[in-house]
Structure formats: C-alpha cells, structure tokens
C-alpha cells in the first residue's frame, strides 16, 4: 500500500490529463499507442479496425458489467441501432462522417436512457431478461422498418469526407480516424472508472444496500452508467459502419449481444484491458478460422468452457493477479 502511495506521489506533477496515473501505466499506454500507430503497416488495417470497433463495444459493455455489476444481455440494440442510424443518415441524407457518428452515439444514448430507465428497476437475471426483451424489440423493428432494408441491410454506405475535407476512402486514413475514436472511447471509460463516480459505482456493485445507506442515490448512478455504456456502444456501432460500409441485421441480433459478453468474460470483466484482449481474441478467431467452417463455433465454445472452468477472472484477470496490479 505504501509502495502505491509513493508511486502516485511520483507523478503528482504530471499533466492533469493523466492525473494520478502510475508511471508504469503511462509507459505501457505510450507503447500501446505506438503499436497501434504502426499496426496498419504490419497487419491488415481493416482487420485491426474491426478489432478496435469491437474492443470499444466490449469496453462500453464492461463498464456496465465489470464496474456496475449489471449484466445487460441486449447491448446489440444500442450498437446496431446506432449503426443503422449512421448508415442511413450518411447514405441517404449525405451527412459527413463526424455528424453521422455523433447521431449514432446519440441514438445509443437515447435508447440507453429509455431502456435503462425501465431496466434498472430490476436486478440480476431479471435485469438481463428485460434488456434482452428490449433488444429483441429493436431486432424486429430493424427487420421490418423500411429504412433498414430488412435482411439485405443498408449497403454501400459511402465512407465520405471527414469535415467535408479529408477523404476516408483510403483504408489508412480511415484507420487513424477509427483509432482516434477508439482512444477517445478508451479515455472516457478510463476516466469514468478512476473518477469518484467510478468509486461509487464499484461500491454499489459490491454492496448496493450499503451505498444507499451512505446516502447515494444508486439508481441515478446506475442509470448514468447505463446511458454512458449505451452511448459508447452506439459510438462503436457507428464506427463499424465506416469500416464495412454496411449495417446489417447481425448487428442487432442477440448473438452480437452474446459475443460482447463472451469478449468481456474471456478477457476479464472488471478490468480495463480485459475487454480489449477479449475482442482481439474473438475477432481473430472469427476471421482467421473462417476457412475452417464449423470449427469456429466449436473452438470458441471450447475456449469459453476452459476459461470458465480454469480461470474465471479471464485472461487479464489472471495476469492482474500475477502482477498484483489493476490493469
């Protein structure tokens, strides 16, 4: 404990942006950003973009599950609705990417507010069921609404020009655009978790009754987290649209909700890096096992079983235990 206090005082003179962050984390963060900057020259950029979009989605989800202790089984609703709205506004109304992106995130926020307001009245399995029910409503809406194109989806969405100036058509330009979105999302989650708000949230997760008795309005905190999580999920969904230039029913399907749960659990829920590791793992398997057909589901299933049986904290959870530092 003393060692930690010392570390904190080490960087007390640092910038406000990274206030209270240990030096080790800062170095790790810088290395990670450098790796992400050169990644598109080594790995196929579209693939890395896909990983970043899903990682952002998983981060948003993990904010709710890992820190808020709320298992939502319907996060595809926010991710997918945002994707549809962004795809539609960019393709049909000719909006610029950043406006489409903001509209997408707002869609997530709005849905999160409405569904969250209703869902947080329940806890545990009931909460999961209520969120799943709302997500299914969104799925059937997307299936039938004329603007979503049913099972054809919205296709050929133009990547457009950022601020009406920078063309996002080249994969590399788009890559850095997505990277900025991802880092922004990560920073928001990071700040939230490490803020007094995040502390209260963790307190609620650990013992809600006690938090209430301390005078916190836990419902407000839960709703705020829910909305934030939905907004970031929406941001992730909107970003995906530019990567693949389409929005399809898969995005609002319950399988997508399930996948994000899988990513969080595999990577390690309640850790900052866990969802990212989980997203990398799941997306890599999905993409690179594509030539092996039916094996993907079997391998993913096997990994999940092994994970649950042997290390429930997830990959990052195990590393965290070993390093004795929160990651």
């Amino acid at each position, binding site marked *: 404990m003393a060692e930690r206090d010392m570390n904190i005082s080490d960087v007390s003179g640092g910038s406000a942006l990274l206030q209270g962050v240990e030096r080790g984390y800062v170095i790790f963060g810088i290395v990670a950003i450098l790796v992400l900057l050169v990644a598109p020259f080594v790995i*196929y950029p579209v693939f890395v973009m896909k990983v970043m979009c899903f990682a952002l989605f998983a981060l948003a989800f993990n904010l709710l599950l890992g820190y808020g202790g709320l298992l939502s089984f319907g996060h595809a609703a926010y991710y997918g609705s945002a994707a549809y709205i962004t795809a539609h506004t960019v393709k049909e109304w000719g909006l610029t990417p950043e406006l489409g992106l903001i509209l997408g995130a707002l869609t997530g926020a709005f849905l999160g507010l409405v569904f969250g307001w209703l869902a947080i009245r329940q806890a545990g399995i009931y909460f999961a069921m209520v969120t799943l029910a709302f997500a299914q409503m969104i799925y059937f809406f997307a299936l039938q609404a*004329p603007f979503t194109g*049913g099972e054809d989806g919205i296709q*050929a969405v133009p990547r457009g020009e950022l601020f009406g100036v920078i063309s996002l058509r080249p994969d590399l330009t788009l890559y850095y655009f997505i990277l900025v979105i991802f880092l922004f999302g990560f920073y928001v989650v990071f700040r939230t978790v490490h803020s007094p708000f995040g502390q209260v949230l963790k307190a609620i997760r650990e013992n809600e009754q006690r938090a209430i008795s301390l005078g916190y309005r836990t419902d407000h905190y839960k709703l705020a987290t829910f909305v934030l999580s939905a907004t970031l999920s929406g941001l992730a969904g909107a970003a995906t649209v530019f*990567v*693949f230039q389409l929005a*399809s029913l898969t995005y609002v399907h319950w399988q997508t909700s399930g996948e994000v749960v899988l990513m969080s659990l595999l990577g390690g829920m309640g850790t900052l890096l866990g969802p990212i590791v989980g997203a990398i793992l799941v997306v890599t398997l999905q*993409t690179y096992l594509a030539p092996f057909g039916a094996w993907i589901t079997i391998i993913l299933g096997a990994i999940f079983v092994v994970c649950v049986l042997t290390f429930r904290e997830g990959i990052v959870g195990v590393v965290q235990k070993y390093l004795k530092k929160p990651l």
Partner: protein
Amino acid sequence: MSLSRTMLFAAAASFVMLGAANAEEGPVRIGVMSDMSGLYADLSGPGSVEAAQMAIEDFGGELFGHPIEVVQADHQNRADLASTVAREWFDDDGVDAIFDVPNSSAALAVQELAREREKFFFISGAATSRLSGDSCSPTGVHWMYDTYSLANGTGRALVAEGADTWFFLTADYAFGHSLEEDTGAVVEGAGGEVMGAVRHPLDTQDFSSYLLQAQASGAEIIGLANAGTDTTNSIRQAAEFGIVEAGQRLAGLLLFITDVHALGLDTAQDLVLTTGFYWDRDDQTRDFAARFEERMGMRPTMIHAGVYSSALHFFKALEEAGTKEADAVMQQVRDIPVDLFGEEAMVREDGRMVHDMYLVRVKSPDESEGDWDYYEILRTIPGDEAFRPMEEGDCPHLTN
C-alpha cells in the same frame, strides 16, 4: 564455359515458360464463400467448394500456365465478416473471383467490394433480385436463380394451369413482403386472383392459426412467401392439417431439394415449386450428380450446380480473353454462350444469367423410385419468361 551454358539454358527455359504462360498473368485463384456450418450449409456450404473443385478438374486444372487455386471461407451469415474476408481476398491474397455467397446481405456486401476492386463475383447462393437490379455490378453475375424467377415461374405457371385463386402465407419482413408482392402481381397479371394474405413473424413455430385462415379462404393455391425453417415448418404443419388432401395446393416460393429431402416425401408431396436445376433431367445432369454424390454423399442442389457451371464458364472466359482485365473478361463472359449442362444460356448486360427454369411437383412416396428421386418436371419455363426483363431492373450501369 559451363557457367555460360547454364545461363543459356536458364534463359531458354524461362523463354519456354513465358511462351506457355501469359507473361503478365499470375495464377488464377478463386474463393468460395459460403455458410459452412449454419442454415445454408446443406444447400450450399462445403458442397459448393467441392463443386468449384470439380469445375477446376474438369477444366484441366490450369490457366495461364499455373494451376488454378481455390480458397474457401465461412461467412457465418455475417455481412461484416463476408466483407472482411472479401477485402482480404481481393487486397492481399490475390483472389480473382468469388463464388456462391448465400445470404443476401453478405452477397450485397461482396458485390459492392467486387465492383470497387474490379474483381469478379459469380452469385449462385443469394436470392435477392437486387443483385441484377439496383445493386447490379459490371463485374457481378447472378447465376442460377433469383427471387423474381422463382416467384414468377411458380405464379405464372400455376395460373396458366388453371389454379387461379391464391392466398399467401407471408413472413413478416422485407423479404416476405417483396416475394408476396412480386408473386401477387404475376398471378393477377396472368388473370388470377389473390384472395388474401396472412403474415407471420420470422421464426414461427406454430402455424396453426395462419394455416386455418389459409384453409378458410378457399383459395386453390397457398403460396408460401417465406424461407428456411419457416417454409419447412409451415409445410409440415399443413400436412398435419390435411390441407393438401383436402384439395388445396401449396406452392413453395423459395425451396431447395435439400428442404424436400429433410421434409420427406410424405410431408412434401404435391408441393409445387420452381428450380433452376434438377439433377435427374438428362444424362448430362445425371452424370454430374453422380460424380458429385461420390464426393459429397448427396445430390447437388441448384446452388451447387450453379457454382460448378459458373466456375467453368469463368475459366473459359479467362482463357478466351487471355487476361484478367475486368472489361475484357466480362466481354467474354457475356459473349461466350453458357453451357449449362447441355442447355444453352447467356449472361445479360445487367449481370443476370438467363436460362430455362423448371416448374416441378414433388412426387408422392409411391412415385419416387429411391433417394433423391423427388421431382416431376411439369413445365420448362423459357428464360425470357422466367427472369425479370432487363429494363425493369433499374440496373444503374445500363442507364449511365
């Protein structure tokens, strides 16, 4: 001395190789993308990869002096995954053409990429007629069937036979609606009457109330404007209700021979549907089917036949063009008559491959002489009649 002789030999050898191969063209690589493990795995899936392999073997295995290679991927019915794989195939793996791709959203995504990258796309698996309509591409060829030809074939042929009152059982989403609308228009255009329709949600388990309405309508034909398990469930339950025995007939608007196989003839008998290929049509199709069965343990669906014939046609076009350059190859794709198991067909400007379709009736268990002997061909629908006329498709590159 010996060194220069070796060099001379090497130079001569490379000249010979250059002569045999087209100097500029690398190996031809095709990708078969399908649903390898989900709901389309039987009617397309691994069988399509095998069909492509057969086409390569039948063509002789080589083009431009290199062996033709085939790669495969499972898109898991996800458009985003289809798009990722297709991008990587085109950009990094040197894939020249993609085949099959069941699932409309996945196929539309690949169509957009293939258009942008000027690569070839031969669609056998996906049904949506948008692929040769508003989403047509100069390098995309929609091969075996589409929703229009299935609906149109069945609708028109049945009305011509005198079955002129229809009732639709429609899956309540865009696909079902458009199938109902298209078929309804054909039925009315041919002098028939649509007596009504009932809509059921996607993935319905219990069709009883819908089937009762269909029965009560008194229509001669109950059109099944749905797909997949919805279709098979509705057929199964219609059999339980004795709807067919009571004199009404079911018309499947999107049904494959594998569905009939799964349902069994007891349940599926007397069902009327349209197909682009039936293995037991003549000696040539029987021969292909027998070879296919040896490898896959099943008779080919129209999608498998489509992948085989489209791959073969693509190789011929490449050979004739002598290059992989998109315009030159597509010119040949359209100019060379398509050999569809002995039947002559052609590829239109909008990318639609036009060939005869077959209106078939599912045999009763007594009529069937064994496994996969399922269809009786009622009528051959000429291509011009079966497919949507080019002007009605609104294909953008034709007007510009």
